């Protein structure tokens, strides 16, 4: 989208209409409007990953280059998945179309497009299931929601399954827990069989497979940027930290999303980790091979998820560490919490995590042997093992954004709040229907955070931004804290658009700011290198 044509906030707001169009959903064709969909995947990445049907095609063109037997391929794929996933089978059968999920999806709230109601998103697939896999659908057809699968229908799948961030908010409200994210995952797997996916899912997956991280950063650049971070920590705090890489025999392997060492504001979070590990003398190592915790395989297929995730345990075993700590990332933690052990366990070569400082045994991770850094830090704070000066974060007035996956797939709600309340003095929650398990997605998850998809992202992020605006106006909030790499990448442009003047930061950035460490300088600047006092004065004035 070019700058001058960029749609304005009030245009978006004025255009939102929750009343559906006059034509029924089965008869309303999909419209590939510029700015609301992602680019298709170039064949080379499909080839690299050994995916079926790699070919060049463009989502906005008429001909998608589908193989002649595309329908059989899809039916075979559905048959297979209906036998492998109880979720898929049951969710296809039991929806009553009560509509409780309808206005829970941020994409529906921000676009008013009825096919963004989770129920209709799922119905796109269910209609095919009904017609070709059930008796009732064969006999009663449309009356029970059966519809013939056409090429147009495949395009609709592509458009709407890549307009779902797999955030699972709908599943919180559905009386049967129907999880449209699960349906979307099935839909995307089926599209893969025809060689249809988007660039920003498959390319990072291919990169991650090869180099170990999404951005395709090679070992030397990885090492450089970790070292830069150490230097910046020194410049800003006067503390000399070390960051060993691929070191055998360390107690802990630390894995974080790659954006932490290449993106901003992620980078400040990375500096926070480095300071924290230094402060408590953690015996740990990074890995250049498993240099990505995030897993775009989750947005691609179950197999791809497993292929990418495999590196973490593989590396933990090779480096002979005792347990693993994972950094701040949302979808990364969905995989680590709900899939990793099943896919790539068991982990008999690791030990149940025990904090070397407090002696706390993390029994809730007895099987995966992997804990979230906020669990590690909260435990340290609770046992008074960190010397903290929260006033160094006084220039921040903070609210906390629960990322979808830690909230709705882990239940990691209190740990970050506990940390924030201990390292900061100004904290205000957003309205209760927009946080914790009801949190709103950033609107750019599951691979949809691309430039070409900007209008849809801004729409999908509207509910989140609107809640931030509320606390900004009410409490003067100027910083949105979060624990997710995708959030840190996509919330800044979102807030810039809807609520200018609110920054985005990771929780461990505040930890780093507040930490008192032996040998530090006067700490006149924060981890961003900005003067602390001056900012405070500016705020007072």
């Amino acid at each position, binding site marked *: 989208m070019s700058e001058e044509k960029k749609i304005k906030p009030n245009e978006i*707001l*004025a255009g939102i209409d929750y009343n*559906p169009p006059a034509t029924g959903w089965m008869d309303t064709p999909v419209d590939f409007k510029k700015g609301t969909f992602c680019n298709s995947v170039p064949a080379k990445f499909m080839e690299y990953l*050994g995916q079926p049907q790699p070919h060049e095609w463009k989502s906005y063109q008429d001909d998608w280059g589908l193989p002649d037997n595309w329908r059989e391929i899809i039916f075979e794929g559905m048959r297979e998945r209906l*036998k*492998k996933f*109880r979720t898929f089978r*049951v*969710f296809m*059968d*039991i929806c*009553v*179309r*009560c*509509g*409780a999920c*309808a*206005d829970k999806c941020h994409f529906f709230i921000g676009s008013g497009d009825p096919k963004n109601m989770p129920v209709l998103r799922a119905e796109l697939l269910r209609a095919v299931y009904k017609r070709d896999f*059930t008796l009732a659908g064969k006999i*009663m057809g*449309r*009356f029970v929601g059966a519809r013939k699968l056409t090429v147009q229908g495949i395009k609709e799948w592509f458009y709407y399954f890549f307009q779902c961030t797999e955030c699972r908010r709908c*599943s*919180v*409200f559905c*009386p*049967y*827990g129907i999880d449209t994210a699960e349906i979307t995952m099935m839909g995307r797997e089926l599209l893969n069989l025809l060689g249809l996916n988007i660039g920003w899912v498959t390319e990072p997956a291919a990169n991650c497979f090869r*180099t*170990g991280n999404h951005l395709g950063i090679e*070992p030397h650049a990885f*090492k450089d940027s970790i070292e830069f971070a150490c230097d910046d920590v020194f410049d800003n705090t006067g503390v000399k930290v070390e960051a060993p890489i*691929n070191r*055998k025999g360390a107690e802990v392997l630390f894995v974080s999303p790659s954006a932490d060492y290449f993106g901003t504001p992620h980078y400040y979070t990375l500096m926070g980790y480095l300071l924290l590990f230094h402060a408590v003398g953690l015996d740990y190592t990074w890995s250049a091979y498993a240099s990505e915790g995030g897993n775009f395989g989750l947005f691609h297929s*179950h197999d791809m998820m497993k*292929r990418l995730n495999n*590196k973490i345990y*593989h590396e933990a075993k090779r480096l002979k560490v005792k347990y693993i700590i994972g950094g701040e990332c949302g979808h990364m933690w969905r995989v680590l919490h709900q899939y990793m052990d*099943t896919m790539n366990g*068991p982990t008999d070569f690791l030990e149940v995590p025990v904090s070397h400082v407090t002696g706390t045994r993390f*029994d*809730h*991770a*007895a*099987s995966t042997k992997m804990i979230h850094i906020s*669990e590690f830090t*909260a435990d340290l704070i*609770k046992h008074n093992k960190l010397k903290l000066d929260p006033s160094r974060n006084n220039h921040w007035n903070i609210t906390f954004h629960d990322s979808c996956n830690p909230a*709705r*797939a882990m*239940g*990691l709600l*209190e740990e970050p709040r506990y940390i924030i309340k201990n390292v900061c003095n100004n904290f205000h929650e957003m*309205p209760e*229907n*927009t946080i914790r*398990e009801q949190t709103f997605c950033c609107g750019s998850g599951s691979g949809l955070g691309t430039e070409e998809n900007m209008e849809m992202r801004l729409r999908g992020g509207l*509910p989140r931004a*609107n*809640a931030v605006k509320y606390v900004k106006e009410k409490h003067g909030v100027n910083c949105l804290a979060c624990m997710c790499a995708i959030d840190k990448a996509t919330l800044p442009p979102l807030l810039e658009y809807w609520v200018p003047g609110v920054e985005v930061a990771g929780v461990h950035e505040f930890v780093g700011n507040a930490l008192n460490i032996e040998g530090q300088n006067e700490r006149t600047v924060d981890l961003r290198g900005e003067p602390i006092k001056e900012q405070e004065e500016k705020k007072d004035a």
Partner: protein
Amino acid sequence: MNFITSFLLTVGLFIVGYFGSRLPFVFGLVIPYTALTLFVLGLVCRMIAWARVPVPFRIPTTCGQQRSLSWIKSNNLESPFNLLGVVGRMFLEVFFFRSLFRNTKAELYDGTRLVYGSNKFLWVGAMAFHWSFLLIVLRHFRFFTEPVLPCVLWLQDLDGLFEIAVPAFYLTNFFIVAALGYLLARRLFNPQVRYISLGSDYFALFLILAIALTGIWMRYIDKVDVVKIKELVMSLVAFAPVVPDGIGWLFFVHLFFVCVLLAYFPFSKLLHMPGVFFSPTRNLANNNRAKRHINPWNPEVKCHTYEEWEDEFRDTLKRIGLPLDKAE
């Protein structure tokens, strides 16, 4: 359109039932047995089919604090970490529609401010409907046993607590009709729900409404001979069917509707009744990191091993001084 089709379909069934009263053997015996068989077999087959599909991953939707550090209060109902929690969560879902109770309504105020008001109407309507339905079904057991079970009598008394008329007026009769009326009106007048509604969604409501209304009609207006009906039902239950003379046509219509519901049940969205028990986002514990979940078809996939990676980047690794497993 969908609404009208379903309505006409229900009227059609009414007419069939009306003429059916002239064929008591078919409509009093053959169809009820067939419908019941379809219902039982259909449900059992469906549940077996579901049960045979594996649950490859443990993916509960967590709606509360996980169990992690001992001093953080975890929520065993919304994010259950053991069997007790799962049972409690399912109990709340099945009997009190816990998730539906969360319902909110998103609105855009002044075109700039999104608010999510609590919206309990659907929950109230759904509770009133389902509980009335359940109690009415239970009350019908007075036709199925001789002597009538004491708990059924007790239920009957409770339901008829407000003795407004003779025969005793049952509260559930009022509630089920009112609730069904609300659910129908909602489908018709809420633009979003109307948009997603299929013919079969209206049909389920009409069918149940037709059952309820013919039942009420028999009970309060055009009274039928209850003694004879019980004779018929008892003979059906005993598998020694006789159709007594003089059972009004209305009863046959009511019975026919019930038969249609039974036969339709296993092939329709009414499957949500058994289905809710099978939903993996609700019936699994959130103890993923503590206990390994097994995927019976865990596939072999091609991975990029450390050795391959080291081979590819060996020169770089050497140059930047990272340790190598193999020198060459």
